[in-house]
């Protein structure tokens, strides 16, 4: 009665599998989410009178993007390609100029004392500034900080910041803090002329 079961012809199996494979190949989006990561400052408590930390004028660099996407750094108009070098010079202050940021000795755990610049970069933008201009400036500022960190890491550990051990990265972060602040929007509004 029962016929001996013959072998199933599996020759087309590969074709079917290929078909499915190609479907998934086409639909897969292997995009990795990338971007500039930042941390926002916490909202100041409204009831609490916050003391405004007085920052010496020489220690602050105001980077302003106005509503027509023009860039001003320390009151001087400049092109975006020049911003990075200007910020790097400001952060390191190689010639110890009196109108550039001062440096203070700081004890860093596991490293010893080193001179840490008290520089603060303050980014200000207008409500009409385009997002693209804002991101380009953010990018240049982050690049300046990263290069200063890389230089510090190169000088003391002989490696770039990214390839350092976690503990060494912490030392570099302490030695070159990312002091990048953004002005409270309300202040910008009231200062609009």
């Amino acid at each position: 009665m029962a016929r001996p079961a013959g072998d199933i012809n599996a020759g087309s199996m590969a074709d079917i599998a290929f078909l499915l494979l190609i479907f998934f190949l086409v639909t897969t989006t292997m995009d990795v989410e990338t971007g500039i990561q930042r941390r926002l400052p916490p909202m100041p408590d409204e009831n609490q009178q916050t003391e405004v930390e007085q920052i010496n004028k020489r220690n602050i660099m105001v980077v302003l993007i106005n509503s027509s996407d023009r860039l001003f750094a320390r009151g001087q108009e400049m092109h975006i390609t020049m911003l990075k070098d200007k910020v790097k010079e400001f952060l390191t202050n190689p010639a110890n100029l009196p109108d550039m940021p001062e440096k203070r000795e700081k004890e860093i755990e596991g490293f010893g004392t080193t001179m840490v610049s008290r520089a603060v970069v303050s980014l200000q933008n207008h409500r009409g500034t385009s997002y693209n201009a804002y991101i380009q400036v953010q990018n240049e500022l982050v690049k300046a900080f990263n290069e200063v960190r890389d230089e510090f890491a190169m000088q003391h550990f002989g490696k770039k910041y990214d390839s350092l051990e976690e503990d060494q990265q912490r030392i570099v972060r302490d030695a070159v803090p990312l002091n990048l602040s953004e002005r409270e929007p309300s202040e910008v509004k009231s200062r609009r002329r």
Partner: protein
Amino acid sequence: MAKFKTKTGKELKPLNTASLPDIVFMLLFFFMISVSFRQTERVVTVRLPEATEIAKLDRKDLASYINIGTPIPAYQGQYGTDARIQLNDSFSTIEDIRDFIAASRESMPEGDRPLMTIALKVDENVHMGIVTDVKQELRRTSALKIMYSTRRKAEQHNF
């Protein structure tokens, strides 16, 4: 004189393809596992700006997305062409962000909540005003870890 030998003795055997399906299935399973279908439908057009100093988002499951851009043409009759905020699948206002953040916090495991990242996918032509408002609202809800989503730009050599 060159001599051409005709191989008469050996017959060329057909290539054994019996293991081909196995290999293809292996590839297939790899892609099936790695595939992630897009969960939300975009109702605003977003063309991300380019940047070089970018970091990868290492925990995709801990990210919430806020899209800001002009509505897609199908919705322009209803919503106009001004930049709008999209949360989940729909147009939203600044006031909705608080609930959105609370809901995404709720859906995450307790221990991972401080690591939540808000990815801002903002069109490059949007004005900063709306972005500033969103950032202020995020500060109010203390969702402080943010990421400006950007595309990778090929490293330019200036001059």
